[in-house]
């Protein structure tokens, strides 16, 4: 099963994690919300799949391009 990483599009911090390992995601589902520049930026799983691993914790600082979630398609 091929896995892909969802990368952060922004520099900021992890505001809220809504997905859990093992969870099935439909295309476009939100897996977590980042805070950046005082905005709540949703991280979407464009293609859907199964959450394999969450790579960050709530409150963590994240950089642009940093892997956030492993998803199996």
């Amino acid at each position: 099963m091929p896995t892909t990483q969802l990368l952060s599009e922004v520099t900021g911090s992890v505001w809220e994690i809504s997905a859990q390992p093992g969870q099935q995601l439909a295309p476009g589902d939100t897996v977590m919300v980042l805070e950046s520049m005082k905005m709540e930026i949703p991280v979407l799983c464009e293609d859907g799949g199964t959450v394999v691993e969450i790579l960050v914790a709530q409150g963590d600082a994240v950089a642009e391009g940093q892997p956030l979630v492993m998803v199996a398609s």
Partner: protein
Amino acid sequence: MSEGADSGTRDNASEAGPWADALDELARRRAFAHGLGGAAAVEKHHAQGRLTIRERIDALADAGSFSEVGSLTGQGLYEGDRLVGVTPAPYVMGLAQVDGRPVAIGGEDFTVRGGTSWSGDRKKGGQGGFVEDLAHQYRIPLVNLIDGAGGSVTSITRRGHSVFPGVHGFERSVQLLGEVPVVCAVMGTAAGGPAGRAILSHWSVMVKDTSHVFAAGPPVVERSLGQKITKEELGGPAMAVATAGTIDNVAADERQCFEMIRRYLSYMPRNVWELPPLGERSDPPARTEEELRRIVPENRRRPYDMRRVIRLIADTESTFEIQPTFGKAVITCLARMHGHVVGFIANNPMVNGGAMDVKAARKQTHFIELCDTFHIPLVFLVDVPGFLVGREAEAAATLREGMRSVYVGLQATVPIFSVVIRKCYGMAGMGTTDKNGLDLKIAWPSAEWGSLPIEGGVAAAFRREIEAAPDPKAREAEIEAGLRANASPFRTAEAFGVEEIIDPRETRLILCRFIEAARGRMQTTLGPKPKAGVRP
């Protein structure tokens, strides 16, 4: 053909008719040209997933529309006086049509010496040459299908001397950027001159997996810096398109690349002396989209899909995004409004909350110049809290690149329409308006503006008052609430500080009407746009 009375002609004519030998030689020479670098080289090229230059031109141009120029150029191989072969010049070019409109088109033939031209071959094109003269003289777009690795040190031996840089220069290439649309597609590995040529374009594209672009490839990099890096890491789309913005867009394969070129050219006039072509006008300007009313969340911390906003406003299926993966805090899109070509520049609240960073500024600057040069009106969809701030942003020269974008916007003479969707703050906000023109600013009820956002400004402006208060936090919130009440967009409209506030569903209609009205004025200001001054 009538028989000539000249007995000499009659004597030379074979049974096949007059000039049969010469026409036969022409056919043989053409066959050599069509053989490119030979069957083995062509097979190797195909095995790498690449089309030959002739296949590329056929795939891009309208069927049967290519009139080749210079098909016989090359190095003839003779046995005595008898021609036994020709190594064709590794550059194929001529006049063709794309969607019924003429273009000058050319590209390197990688199957001959890796696309490296010699001496007389260079007159055809690649850097300057006939193909660029054709675009200049006839004022028609130029399409470069680049597949060459540039110069080779072996030329020193052949010539007996080394060449001074610029012997095949970029003078014409630079001139064309103010005259006709120039598209450069990197179809293979482009280094050196061909890589530089790719940059001298209005729009550039490369192909995933099979094309790379860099000033110099991995062997030179390793020799110069000791850096070991793959071709893909150094000049694949992840670097050249998404990270560096050296090339604008990436195509999944060569076929898609040609579709994208056709699509890009469909928005362009033939040259700067003409207006862009009117497209289909079947999508009614009065089409209203309920979704626009709901798309901006009332919670100011929640972003929304700005690309969706563009798609809802523009003519159905009419958008073409330039640089979608670079400088993502701003979205730049060619599109149509009731058939008129327009350029959308929209802040993207999903990235940096829409704050302009150095890459977004660079992208916006280029897009403004592109649209201004080809008389394409600009529509700003504004949601910008300002320039990006912080140590990294300052180190990257956000302020300078941001102000360069503002400067180029103020030099533009094409009509600019500003639709303020949410935030419009500071210098970046000012840069979204038509200060030198009508300065028509249309706001949605969700709009807010100022010289800086209230939340950032209160702490600085009321520092002493806040510090002296028994509960500083509460005092700060109180001041903020007071200011925000006065920051209603309707109060600015009372003062005609913003020209109109509209229901978001009315956006398409009002823009279509003003864009249509501005077309007549643009017809009177056609031609090149020479610009004086020094960009900051």
